[in-house]
């Protein structure tokens, strides 16, 4: 049977946390798939065309976003007396 497969009560994250985490997780995906927003040569940085350094920059931004999402989820679970 197709049962409603929802997070069990007590484990459910607060809606604010869910929304923030969703933004943090989606931001890198949207930014990098939107190729038209960065397929340019100028401005160059240390000889790198914009197209290249912008994507390198996202390595760091994406990493920070994911880390923040991790911390938010962990703290929210901890507050609810969950398992860490």
């Amino acid at each position, binding site marked *: 049977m197709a049962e409603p497969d929802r997070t069990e009560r007590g484990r459910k994250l607060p809606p604010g946390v869910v929304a923030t985490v969703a933004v943090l997780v989606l931001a890198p995906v949207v930014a990098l798939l939107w190729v038209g927003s960065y397929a340019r040569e100028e401005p160059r940085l240390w000889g790198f065309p914009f197209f290249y350094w912008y994507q390198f920059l996202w390595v*760091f931004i994406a990493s920070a976003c994911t880390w923040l999402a991790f911390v938010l989820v962990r703290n929210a679970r901890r507050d609810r007396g969950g398992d860490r």
Partner: protein
Amino acid sequence: MNEVDYVALTIVLVLFAFVTVVGFVAARWRRAASLASLDEWGLGGRGFGTFVTWFLLGGDLYTAYTFVAVPAAMYATGAVSGFFAVPYTIIVYPIIFVFMPRLWSVSHRHGYVTPADFVEGRFASRGLGLAVALTGIVATMPYIALQLVGIQAVLEVMGIGGAENIILRDLPLFVAFAVLAAYTYSSGLRAPALIAFVKDFLIYLVIIVAIIYIAVEIGFGTIFDAAEQKMTATNPNTGAPTGSFIPPPSQYLAYASLALGSAMALFMYPHSITAVLSSSSRNVIRRNAAILPAYSLVLGLLALIGFAAIAAGTQPIGLDGKPNAQLVVPQFFEDSFPSWFAGIAFAAIAIGALVPAAIMSIAAANLFTRNIYRAYFEREASPAREAAISKVVSLVVKLGALAFVLTLDRQNAINFQLLGGIWILQTFPALVFGLFTRWFHRYALLAGWAVGMLYGTISAYQQSSPITRHFGRSLDEVPFIGDLGYIALTAFVLNLLVATVLTYAFRAAKVPEGTDATSPSDYHADAGDPRIKPIPELTDDAKAATT
């Protein structure tokens, strides 16, 4: 360049001997009472903390072939065929952040070792499990073969492998593989986990030195200018530009779909899932999703070596006298650095091939044992029997990969790997959507998978390039849009459409849906949960490693 570089060769041999010892010693690392179960042999006791998992996943996902092929693609045709690897390996982590912890939890509750185990349990369908398992095995085999191609590239630049005699020519490859097979057999997943430390240390060292060299000796402005000149020049054979320096609007879809499709596919590969399931808790996975992009940075910098080689005028010519772009990275190191450092770079690539090859063969063997042998031949196989079978199958898988490389054209391995990426993405709906919902009907998923496989295979077969008549590229015109897009993603959309429509149809026809073996709370269970099987010998150092 046809002379053997003995200094480089000696360095490679010494480092190779070192990791061989490490591989055998690994059996004693975090010693378990016995390696005679798939949990121990095939998942390293499921107890790796953040630190080990980071190295293991890094060593597993960023393979020798990647390190050879991505710069080669940059060298030959530029950004769309090569640099998409950077956005691809960035967006893969938010994606796994969302679904991997759920797979970890449900797998630990139910003792699932492979993705096909989960699909079988969730949808009560051995057929769907078999489809996922077979896809995983056929997609992984050519991937292992390509690791050998990576080793071959290094050997060729060192001047080895030119002998006419087939035995002599391929002897180094035989030796490398025999050694790999032996310690994987005896140590299981612990061997690649320990060797990954050596591999990653070497890779980071090599890339840092290379980037400093490029910055100081050549200059980044120069390499990008040289690349721009080469890529925008007209190719006399096709009348079109040689490649793409910065993708034009007509290639935005190609670039984005390659990045997204590859990112979605990466963690469908059984070897990725094996490495994730060997971690000790959900948080280890989430933390790793945040720190693994460090490797994406390395991959991006390595990609630039393809451009640096253009500026440096590197001539990647094989021992047969024909140009071969795959040799561009080893050739660049051979030309630009003293022999001893080139030797370290070669060793980094060769050892980089061993880690993923070991994990891939373990993962493929686990799939065979759990989802083919146990599901169809011996329902009551004991854990010891499963481990024994997996060990033998891992040898068979590696022999198969070796035969692949030695008997078939190298181009075939690349073609099949391209197909593998298309195929493996077709297991995404059953696995990832299955983690969140049981809305899809099991037979609808199976039909969607079949349609996606068929469409992807035919579409890839029809692509010709100046080098090959078939499987020339992974891009094809997307129906209704017209621009080029990644075939795997188009096939995936088709797969999803079929699965959705048929789900309504099967439900209307009241086709039985089977009983779900999992329950909603299974998807959140974490280490310490009473229903998670504790692994006492590992919980202590797992904790030490995570803090």
